[in-house]
């Protein structure tokens, strides 16, 4: 591209008194911002390339660097905001589809923040989780209509396969290809240590991660990358990916830059080609066809694994979820419109789908109305940021949640949202060997385990405060929720009362 009419987005301030020209920033910045001028014997910056990933700032030994928003605003205009002008100019320069990484950053309401939790006072006293048992164990899968117990007290009903989680949280689908092998390893090891599961995403399972298979949900998407009978038999569960919250209705392209040797081998595609997952599975055009694939996978895994179907939260999510349950899925995963991604067309990410909070309650209601809620577990995803969000999701009706962005943040992601460039300076969303090395899997695992351990304590604390001693008693218990700053229509859909009611 030739001349750009845009000023840089960020300004790189280098404190001359502090800078010792050590060139750490030059080697650390994957975006070619810092460079050393041999003649001047000084480090300079090409500010227009900076994506504000913080890498150089954090690693500069003398704290000489500050990255700021470039102090040049466009003339005020409520209709044409800076971002609108910038995006338009970029398209005028390239003629391309705008790409984005991570979830929708637009200032749309975050409904988690408009929902408040209850606590006991005087009656139904609260429970102190430090001294009393508190159960977070969660089972995902089809539950029987009724239990039959034999005269000797043994269980006679055959229970469908279940995923057993030590807490209602799992790591979302992120493929090897979109993230590095080290990042996949962190997810796998942390899942194992925590007694939960991670999801392979659609890129297959690298040989070196087979040993974590008992804590792995293997995904089958339209591109069917890395899917074979071993893959289906080895995982603890299988997930059919229909849609993703960040890009409902469209497929994925893993750019050729990220398809290096190991990724190509795992996906079984030529080196350096784009890995294309079209929007539809071309063997699924109806709920009946979905049933065919669900049962193809069950046949292939001898009916020993729960099968999940993942969809994006879209307008008629409740009806779709009902169809999925009736098609024979054991788990429905719903990804809200803030769900993250390695790459999505910006316009799709920012404008398509609905908030996960509404989707959970709509689906939970519908399945209950139809009397089939027990047939499936509901897993919610898309911008779960902390333990309180998890508690609210469960109270709205989810069985568990998936976290993706939160897990990457724990590993060191700084949410620069340039994952699609394949140059992630924190070694997460990249395949370049010198960058991949930046993520130390041991440290990553420890940080992720720390995060979930902290969250588990917090969830117990919140439950205890409500006088509840098992997460199961909270599921769909919307009495524990109140809304603030919500219209009565919104309260109705969420199935919760207003604060004070």
């Amino acid at each position, binding site marked *: 591209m030739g001349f750009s009419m845009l000023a840089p987005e960020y300004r790189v301030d280098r404190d001359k008194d502090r800078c010792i020209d050590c060139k750490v920033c030059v080697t650390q910045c994957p975006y070619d911002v810092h460079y050393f001028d041999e003649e001047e014997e000084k480090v300079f910056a090409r500010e227009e390339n900076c994506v504000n990933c913080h890498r150089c700032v954090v690693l500069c030994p003398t704290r000489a660097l500050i990255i700021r928003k470039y102090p040049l605003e466009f003339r005020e205009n409520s209709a044409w905001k800076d971002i609108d002008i910038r995006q338009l100019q970029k398209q005028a320069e390239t003629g391309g589809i705008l790409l984005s990484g991570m979830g929708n950053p637009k200032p749309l309401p975050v409904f988690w923040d408009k929902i408040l939790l209850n606590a006991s006072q005087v009656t139904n006293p609260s429970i102190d989780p430090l001294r009393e048992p508190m159960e977070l164990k969660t089972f995902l899968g089809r539950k029987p209509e009724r239990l039959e117990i034999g005269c000797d007290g043994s269980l006679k009903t055959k229970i469908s396969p279940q995923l057993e989680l030590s807490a209602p949280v799992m790591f979302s689908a992120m493929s090897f290809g979109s993230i590095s092998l080290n990042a996949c390893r962190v997810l796998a090891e942390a899942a194992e240590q925590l007694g939960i599961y991670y999801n392979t995403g659609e890129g297959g399972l690298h040989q070196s991660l087979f040993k974590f298979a008992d804590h792995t949900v293997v995904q089958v998407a339209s591109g069917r990358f890395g899917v*074979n009978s071993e893959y289906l038999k080895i995982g603890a569960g299988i997930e059919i990916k229909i849609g993703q919250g960040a890009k409902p209705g469209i497929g994925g392209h893993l750019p050729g830059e990220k398809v290096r040797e190991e990724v190509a081998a795992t996906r*079984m595609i030529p080196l350096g080609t*784009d*890995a*294309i997952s079209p929007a539809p599975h*071309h063997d699924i055009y109806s709920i009946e066809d979905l049933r065919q694939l669900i049962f193809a996978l069950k*046949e292939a895994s*001898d009916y020993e694994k729960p099968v999940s179907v993942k969809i994006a939260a879209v307008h008629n999510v409740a009806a779709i979820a009902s169809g999925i349950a009736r098609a024979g899925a054991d788990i429905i995963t719903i990804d809200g419109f803030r769900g993250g991604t390695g790459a999505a067309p910006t316009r799709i990410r920012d404008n398509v789908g609905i908030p996960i909070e509404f989707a959970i309650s709509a689906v939970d209601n519908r399945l209950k109305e139809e009397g089939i809620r027990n047939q499936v577990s509901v897993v919610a995803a898309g911008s779960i940021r902390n333990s309180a969000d998890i508690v609210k999701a469960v109270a709205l009706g989810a069985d568990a949640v998936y976290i993706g962005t939160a897990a990457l943040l724990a590993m060191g992601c700084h949410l620069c949202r340039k994952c699609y460039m394949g140059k992630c300076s924190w070694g997460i969303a990249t395949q370049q060997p010198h960058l991949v090395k930046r993520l130390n899997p041991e440290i990553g695992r420890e940080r992720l385990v720390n995060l979930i351990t902290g969250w588990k304590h917090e969830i117990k604390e919140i439950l205890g405060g409500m006088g509840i001693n098992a997460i199961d008693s909270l599921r769909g218990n919307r009495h524990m929720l109140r809304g603030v700053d919500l219209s009565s229509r919104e309260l109705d859909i969420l199935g919760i009362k207003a604060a004070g009611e």
Partner: protein
Amino acid sequence: MKVLDAHKLSYRELNDIIKEEAPREKEIKIKNLRGQRYIGGTLKEGCTLYLDGIPGNDLASFMNGAHIVVSGNAQDGVGNTMNKGEIVIHGHAGDIMGYAMRGGEIYVKTDVGYRVGIHMKEFGEQIPMLIIGGSAGNFLGEYMAGGVIIVLGIGDSPEESIGNFCGTGMHGGRIYIRGEVPAFKFGKEVKEAAMEEEDYRLLKDKIKKYCKYFDYPMKKINLEDFHKYVPIGSRPYGNLYAY
């Protein structure tokens, strides 16, 4: 040879029996198939299934080395994500045959439906192959990332031997078609490439097998008539985005 009667068996019952018998039987004949799905799914090498009647959708899905001979026609989804093995169909097959196929070979005596060979893959030694005696429907080899498709077009004019949009989104693999096919039948990601020594060797080998399986005179097929189609580039959508 073990003989099973599929009459009145559900697919699950039938497949359970096949899964149990296959490791110890070299050959199993299954009579009276009535559209049961997933026959031969995930089966490993060492066993050949002879199928009489109509096998249902997703025949040999995720199959991993077994051989299957179908005496008549097959339905949709034959060889879905198949990894290894061989299927010989003495009739026609439906849509999306060979979806995301990763290895092995499928021979079809006559025609196949839409979107056959979609997403076929390939890596190293593992090269999946489809050999189609008659014609193929629209979107043959869509999004193909690897593997080989051969269309003999027996009984059809070259133009009729494939549908429209052949090779749309193709970024790997090769398609061989007998006779001159007009350019409009292909997706815009496909180009014709010159036939080389290696191509003739491959064609000869596979067509010989076709002729043997279906008792067709090899001399009726002139290898010189074949055209080869490959992707224009490995990144059909590389320039679509503004980075």
